[in-house]
């Protein structure tokens, strides 16, 4: 028991928040960090107690609309943002947390938590969440590829095998043999088309071999064939000098935006504009679809990474990313990247 008390005392001294415990406005005990702060920053603990006190009074004041609010009365802690060392070069921002330990004996604690640390923790949490999203998206993508391989490719090859087996085993006359051969050829042809389409969806070789603009043209062509929707590509850019990363991200943004425009916006016309200027390259994807309310879609929707992913990818390469849309007025997605001077852009 004594041992445990020792540990608790040690923890109290070593914890990274400054803790003061008061009894009836008098400082009773404080931990190591609180003492250091007190000496280094010249903080009067009574000042902190007074700040907390006024704040508590304020919250319980009858002029407040929320007096007697049952939720507030249940709150054991009150936190107050406070800036210490105001006169110094780097003021320190803290949360002062007021906590009643023993109401009958008027014992309460004040804890100073650094706001910087709290913000950093929020960032870390956000990063973790994003990582999870990315992982989930990767898994979803694999699931889709696997399903496509199984449903269309494997099935097509299987039917072709069955056809060849029939050719071997059945004694068919010349006309039937020819017809069956034609059917098999058709099946293999369809399968080939599917394989090519999948390869294009996963990673277009055009992008690696011929650059961004031809890749966008192929994407537009394929979209038109699959959907019947008009996709126009207007380009005025030499993309040879562009880094592979930027080209890939621009391509993915175009792909995702087209996909969104077809799937969610029911667009009947989509325009892609790729224009290079002296120091930046700009890609715009404009559709005439139903549009959407952007704030509602900022959060992760549980299925696709969509907007959030696009934004993250662009930010990682120092670009900027913007979506403007409102219900009934189509959507415009803009991505812009800084570049060093492009050869032959003008």
């Amino acid at each position: 028991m004594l041992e445990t008390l020792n540990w608790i005392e040690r923890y109290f001294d070593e914890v990274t928040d400054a803790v003061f415990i008061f009894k009836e406005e008098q400082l009773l005990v404080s931990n190591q960090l609180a003492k250091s702060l007190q000496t280094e920053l010249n903080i009067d603990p009574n000042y902190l107690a007074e700040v907390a006190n006024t704040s508590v009074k304020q919250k319980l004041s009858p002029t407040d609309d929320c007096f007697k609010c049952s939720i507030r009365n249940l709150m054991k802690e009150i936190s107050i943002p406070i800036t210490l060392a105001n006169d110094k070069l780097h003021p320190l921002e803290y949360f002062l947390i007021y906590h009643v330990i023993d109401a009958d004996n008027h014992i309460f604690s004040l804890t100073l938590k650094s706001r910087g640390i709290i913000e950093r923790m929020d960032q870390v949490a956000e990063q973790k969440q994003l990582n999870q999203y990315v992982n989930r998206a990767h898994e979803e993508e694999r699931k889709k590829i696997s399903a496509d391989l199984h449903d269309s490719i494997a099935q097509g090859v299987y039917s072709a095998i069955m056809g060849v087996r029939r050719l071997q085993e059945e004694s068919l006359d010349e006309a039937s043999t020819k017809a069956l051969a034609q059917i098999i050829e058709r099946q293999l042809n369809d399968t080939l088309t599917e394989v090519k389409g999948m390869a294009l969806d996963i990673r277009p070789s055009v992008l690696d071999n011929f650059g961004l603009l031809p890749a966008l043209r192929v994407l537009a062509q394929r979209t038109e064939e699959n959907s019947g929707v008009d996709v126009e590509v207007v380009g005025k850019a030499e993309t040879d000098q562009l880094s592979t990363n930027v080209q890939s991200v621009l391509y993915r943004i175009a792909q995702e935006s087209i996909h969104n425009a077809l799937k969610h916006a029911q667009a009947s016309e989509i325009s892609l504009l790729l224009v290079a200027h002296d120091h930046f390259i700009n890609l715009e994807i404009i559709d005439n679809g139903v549009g959407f309310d952007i704030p509602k879609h900022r959060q992760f929707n549980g299925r696709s990474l969509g907007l959030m992913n696009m934004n993250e990818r662009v930010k990682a390469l120092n670009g900027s990313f913007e979506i403007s849309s409102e219900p009934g007025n189509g959507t415009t997605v803009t991505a812009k990247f800084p570049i060093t001077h492009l050869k032959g852009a003008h």
Partner: protein
Amino acid sequence: MSLENVDTQHDYQHLVNHIYQVDDFDFVGVALYATDQSTIKWYFVAGNQNEQFRKIVLRSGIGIAGLVVRTGKPFWKNSLQDYEYTDKMYTPIARVESLQNAAAVPIYLSAVKLVGGVLLAGYRSNHPVSNETTSRLSQYLDTF
């Protein structure tokens, strides 16, 4: 084009026109395989609201017409506008022609069991399609 001469092409146009005139469909179309068997596209239509259909390349197994191509059997579906772009039932021709309900039957160019094309007809209104619609379409093909 899988058709040998201009006469048969003219005949398919004649067929879709005929069905469009005598029946109550809002759109009638025929898609045929290219000579090299690689692509299948809409060549003959009646009641179209734009020229978008020319851009579509049918995918075997996707959408009404694609399913008819793959299976060689008639197929019909109502409420087509409910399907999204990535769905297996997303039918591009229904999207560009705003068809709610449509039915399609295979076209066999010779006696062999090789689908040469698709005859599709549909409604922009809520007029439903059923087995009866596909058998009506088959009859048009038989008497053609």
